[in-house]
């Protein structure tokens, strides 16, 4: 029994090493995800065997983030819905920690728990925009296609929009409004006008023109029509 205990302790120390905890980081490689799962499973076995580890919270890592994820979803789901389906991660974090009062959660644990939402099939999703902005979204209602069609409808009704216009219409944070406009621009639904007055987004007339041109069979012809030999 002593041999098994010392072997288990040796493994526990290795599991708590910086290399092992790296496997859980957001930017871990694909192959590391498999390793991360095995590490988690192993931690769970150790827990079942009742082995003590020098760093208690990390040993509970396998279960801790899952349980935290469930708790977060229960707590935040309504709040996210009330905010129109999307909330900046920092806002969600502050709100949640304020509610916990005494046993605060580390930001890294909060993020790791949120990253588990999809795997645990919970009704919220963590999303990172290309600019680096992190948000929590209602899994069902925050798809790109919905955003694009909504913004397109606003522009059709109200004319070209700035980010602050959109923020006012959707009652959301300015940074989120910007992200949504950039999302529509990346999808080719909108184009931008930059001037001293700021950045304003229009429906993409270039895409419409390109479609007409392709339909006529002009396509990517380099020679302009008017140049005749």
């Amino acid at each position, binding site marked *: 029994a002593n041999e098994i205990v010392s072997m288990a302790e040796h493994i526990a120390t290795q599991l708590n090493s910086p290399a092992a905890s790296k496997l859980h980081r957001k930017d871990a490689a694909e192959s590391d995800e498999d390793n991360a799962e095995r590490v988690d499973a192993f931690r769970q076995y150790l827990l079942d065997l009742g082995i003590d580890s020098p760093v208690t919270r990390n040993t509970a890592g396998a279960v801790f983030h899952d349980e935290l994820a469930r708790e977060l979803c229960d707590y935040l789901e309504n709040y996210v819905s009330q905010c129109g389906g999307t909330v900046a991660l920092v806002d969600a974090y502050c709100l949640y920690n304020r509610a916990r009062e005494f046993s605060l959660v580390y930001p890294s644990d909060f993020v790791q728990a949120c990253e588990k939402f999809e795997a645990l099939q919970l009704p919220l999703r963590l999303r990172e925009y290309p600019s680096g902005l992190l948000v929590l979204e209602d899994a069902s209602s925050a798809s790109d296609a919905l955003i694009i069609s909504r913004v397109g409808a606003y522009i059709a009704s109200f004319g070209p929009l700035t980010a602050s216009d959109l923020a006012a219409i959707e009652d959301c944070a300015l940074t989120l409004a910007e992200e949504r406009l950039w999302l529509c*621009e*990346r999808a*080719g639904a909108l*184009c*931008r*006008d*930059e*001037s001293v007055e700021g950045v*304003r987004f*229009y429906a*993409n*007339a*270039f*895409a419409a*023109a*390109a479609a007409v*041109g392709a339909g006529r069979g002009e396509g*990517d012809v*380099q*020679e*302009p*029509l*008017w*140049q*005749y*030999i």
Partner: protein
Amino acid sequence: MSNTTAAATPGAFQFPEIYNFPPFFTRQPNESTWQEQRRQWCDLILAYYKHNRLYSLTLAEAITEPPFTNRQIHRSLRVDVLRELVDDLVKQGNASWTGAKNAKDSCLVLWRKPEVWASMIYQWANERGLFNTVLTVFELANGDDAVGQEFHNLDSVTLRRALDVLQSQGKAQLFVGTSDEDMGVKLFV
């Protein structure tokens, strides 16, 4: 679409609708949107320059004037975007950088390629029986015989390019005079 219409094109230039669309003057970050935008700009530049019989542009000056400025909507194209457009035109053979090497601040706008000018001149010379006679380059483009031709009063730099093409095709020989106007040319079969 005849190729022997008179050189002067009457009336004001008809700008395309996109010219009044403010985003037209902003370099679009979306790559496929930009492809369509630059195609429309290149067409516009060549059409505008052809209509107004303009042959060269200096970037820093050009952006303050049509077609690169639209005063009605208070928009101007940025000079670095214009530089990108001229690079595109150069790639398709419709422009050529002039001035200091790599400075990219002035260019020729070849709304008709030198090869096309060359064949027009050659065809005209054939019709008029001007082979094997020496003409001054000036007389060729500006003389009475050239009246009514597309290349009448053609810009001298562009004309020179066209004659260079004929020379490289073995259809002409240029003779250096004391200046460009004195330069002579002989065309032959």
